[in-house]
């Protein structure tokens, strides 16, 4: 099996491209906002935000960064993401920047 083929349809591959590109774009264009959020989160251990579609809560669970995104629509998909916590503060900020961007970029459905 070719590694990235098989499960996704052509339409889903396009969505994959759009979502991951959007995440990449957010990591650059929103970097300053995400850095401030990351510092606030590291200091307090908690951070909440929302997008048009989700309420998003960041916390620390089982020694991991946790992001719980709950859909505002009762029938829509929700998601949660867990990332290991790096040792250095700089790396923690980088990890959180990606976590913030992924949570705002949406899901590949």
């Amino acid at each position, binding site marked *: *099996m070719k590694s990235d083929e098989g499960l996704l349809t052509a339409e889903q591959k396009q969505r*994959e*491209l759009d979502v991951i590109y959007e995440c990449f774009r957010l990591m650059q264009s929103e970097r300053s906002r995400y850095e401030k959020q990351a510092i606030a989160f590291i200091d307090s251990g908690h951070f909440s935000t929302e997008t048009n579609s989700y309420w998003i809560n960041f916390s620390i669970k089982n020694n991991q960064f946790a992001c719980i995104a709950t859909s505002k629509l009762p029938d829509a998909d929700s*998601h*949660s993401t867990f990332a290991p916590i790096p040792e250095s503060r700089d790396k923690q900020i980088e990890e959180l920047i990606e976590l913030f961007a992924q949570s705002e970029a949406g899901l590949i459905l």
Partner: protein
Amino acid sequence: MKLQKALALLILISQLNINPASGSEIIKKAPEAPCRLQINIAHLSTNLKERLGIRAVKVDASSICNVPQSDVSITVEIWKTGKFQDYQVWKKTTFSPGATQPGNRVNNFSTYKYCKNKVKTSYYGVAYSKAFIAGKWQYARHVLSVAIIPLKCGT
């Protein structure tokens, strides 16, 4: 001659032990699981790499059932191998509320992690799921990617 007969008898007995159902009409088949959880190999999306020049390691998983299911959650973990132990890189769970009809897939195609550099690293995926089927919670066991592939992707 006696030795040969003893050897033949021994072989016969061992074959009977290996296949206890042989010669019997009663062959019990394990009940077929109502759901199938598929996971692919950890990979760099060629689509992303070629069209946008972005490198990200990604693992996809998909669940399909031959019975109605609801409240399906699928978790995908991306792991990288280490010298003394393996490390979890990223973990994502998708939750689909409501009912899913037999034959319809529920997917987790959103588990990915950007590559910080091009350091060759070996990755694999792990997937597991949970769904409400026929009035009770059913859990799919952990499924691993069939291969561990070194990728030019440091995370």
